[in-house]
């Protein structure tokens, strides 16, 4: 599916050299996508509700320690392990968008997709969502609030993609690079997250994807992720 040049191949490039681990993307994602905040007790039970998270790994021995960050979100795989295992097509591949779609109304909550996601990118609604004051005043009307028993995950801000497409159609032009930016990319102060269409050869992601630092997460599984990481640290050359 990734080979096809028609249509869009929405891609995210995350430069790990730029990522400071500030978590602005996490907050922006919560705000944009109506992801509830669950509180410290629930998080300590292993039920942190995030669509994007910063994984922090320590490198080296004390005192020569270095923190390494890697933001992990749904990789929007071309060959996604979550899709075939869903018994009701709640998790399916949109050929038009080249994205993994999660249909909340269809989801029956088997959690098989979450077990089968090697990136552990899926979040489950263990209870009905709760938005404490004043967060309940800022829910995004473009995004559904998910109720208990439903699996959810990063959508690449599909509502923004749609809005960008509608805007371009209204102005009778084609979609330009930079028209669509997901909340995480928009909020990243270091501009570590770049979003665009890989099928557009002049897009920023297409340029960045040529970098020699590029890698994809757990690429050996053959999942064909749409998130490209640029390796961080001192070891790279170019």
């Amino acid at each position: 599916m990734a080979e096809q040049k028609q249509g869009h191949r929405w891609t995210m490039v995350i430069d790990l050299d730029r990522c400071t681990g500030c978590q602005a993307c996490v907050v922006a994602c919560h705000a944009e996508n109506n992801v509830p905040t669950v509180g410290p007790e629930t998080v300590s039970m292993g039920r942190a509700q995030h669509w994007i998270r910063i994984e922090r790994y320590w490198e080296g021995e004390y005192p020569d320690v270095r923190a390494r960050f890697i933001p992990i979100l749904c990789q929007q795989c071309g060959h996604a392990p979550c899709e075939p295992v869903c018994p009701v097509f709640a998790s399916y591949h949109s050929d038009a968008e080249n994205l993994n779609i999660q249909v909340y109304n269809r989801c029956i909550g088997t959690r098989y997709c979450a077990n089968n996601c090697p990136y552990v990118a899926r979040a489950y609604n263990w209870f009905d969502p709760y938005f404490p004051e004043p967060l309940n005043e800022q829910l995004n009307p473009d995004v559904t609030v998910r109720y208990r028993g439903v699996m959810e995950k990063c959508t690449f801000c599909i509502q923004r993609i749609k809005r960008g497409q509608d805007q371009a159609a209204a102005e009778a032009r084609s979609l330009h690079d930079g028209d669509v930016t997901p909340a995480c990319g928009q909020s990243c102060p270091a501009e570590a997250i770049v979003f665009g269409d890989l099928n557009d050869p002049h897009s920023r992601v297409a340029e960045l994807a040529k970098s020699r630092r590029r890698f994809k997460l757990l690429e050996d599984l053959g999942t064909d992720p749409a998130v490209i990481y640029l390796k961080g640290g001192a070891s790279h050359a170019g």
Partner: protein
Amino acid sequence: MLADLPKAHKLVWPHEDDPKERLLLDPIPQDEMNSRMLKPMLKASPGYWLTVAILATVVAVCLFGYWFYMVRWGMGIAGIRRPVGWGMFIATFVFWIGISHSGTFVSAILRVFNVEYRRPITRASELMTTFSLACAGLFPFIHLGRAWTVYFMIPMPNQRQLWTNFQSPLAWDLIAITTYLIGSTLYVYLPMIPDLAMTRDRMTGWRRTIYKFLSLGWRGLEYEWHYLHVAIKIFAFAIIPVMFSVHTIVSWDFAMSTQVGWHSSIFGPYFVTGAIFSGVSAVISVLLVVRKTMGLGYFLRQEHFDALAKLVLVFSLAWTYFFFNDYLVEWYGGEWVGHQLLTLQARGPVAPLWYAMLFFNIAVPVLTLWNKRVRRSPIALFLITIGINIGMYLERYIIIPGFLQRNRLPFDWGAYNPQPVELSIAIGTLAFFSLLYLLASKVVPLIPVWEVLEGQLSHTRRRIGKTVVTSVAELE
């Protein structure tokens, strides 16, 4: 006849088993045989009703009550978390599917191979299949986050022509389990018809009306027997591949995934072997209780338990083989995450369970069941078989919520702690199974009397020279 022989003669071949006991070759009048089966069915002690009441309460509160509470508030009250999406619910589900292999194996496979000692034990084990499937069948509903949308899984298009996803192992699961449930119910019912008719002929009043309906107007005519034998034979052959497919497909729920430790081509036969291992053990435990409480000592003898215990020993060794194979490949392969799993089992939080599993599934049966005295001791056998089922439950627990605690991204590792709702529902299904079995024991003759009689009639004891042999006449 054997009593006529000189005593010294027996001592010549002390190792040789006398099939007389296994084949019940000490016939009693047919009427007495019938009444020995019917008497415990008609009589219910206060203890029986008390047990039924307790079990019914446990089922109502622990199983259904807690389940509906969970449906109301959300799966969050269970201990599952990220990344352990499946916990005790699925482990218990696999456990009951495993128990359901008891009946089919003991009854159908032994029937197909004309193993004669199966006769008195078929019905009791087939009923276990049906009832354990009834328990297992609850779990796909229980573990759903939105149990009220379970009908989405029925392979039938909705108003937008959207079907279920036949690529999903869970969709295969649903079809396999439904097929097995229907098939095994028919398979337990068919050989029951002559016994139901026998019961009908000895009952009066409303009971007679019920059995009249259940026995489908059986009169015992020659063509009826002919068709019954043909039908049983067809079902016995047909249910065997269904049995293999069911647990293979259940194992595919795991083996088809990308999870390390699950993605293994050995899971199909490994799970089937484990299922038969736990199933046959459960048959022994249940039959021992049935014999004790219902006074069926005439039908269920030491020799039957001896023969079943040998099967358990064989399956213990077979399970050990698969376990070893699975373990060795993971270890030798040297993949990093795989090694983390093995460390988790050997030294991690799962370790006590893992060693207990090896103790109950390998050490105990292999070290004890070779001994005829152990195989013929009801108490020892009861403890060993209960231990095996504890061990097999631990196996499923280790494989499902155990393995899920480790994955390729160490940041997302996590521990799983079962919560009250999970323990309660697991205990609730054990009570549900026991309740169904207890109720059935008063409705259905647990011993297929006609099959026992058929076995007795088809065997004769003949003296040839100085020895006595059992000869078999094929009933055709």
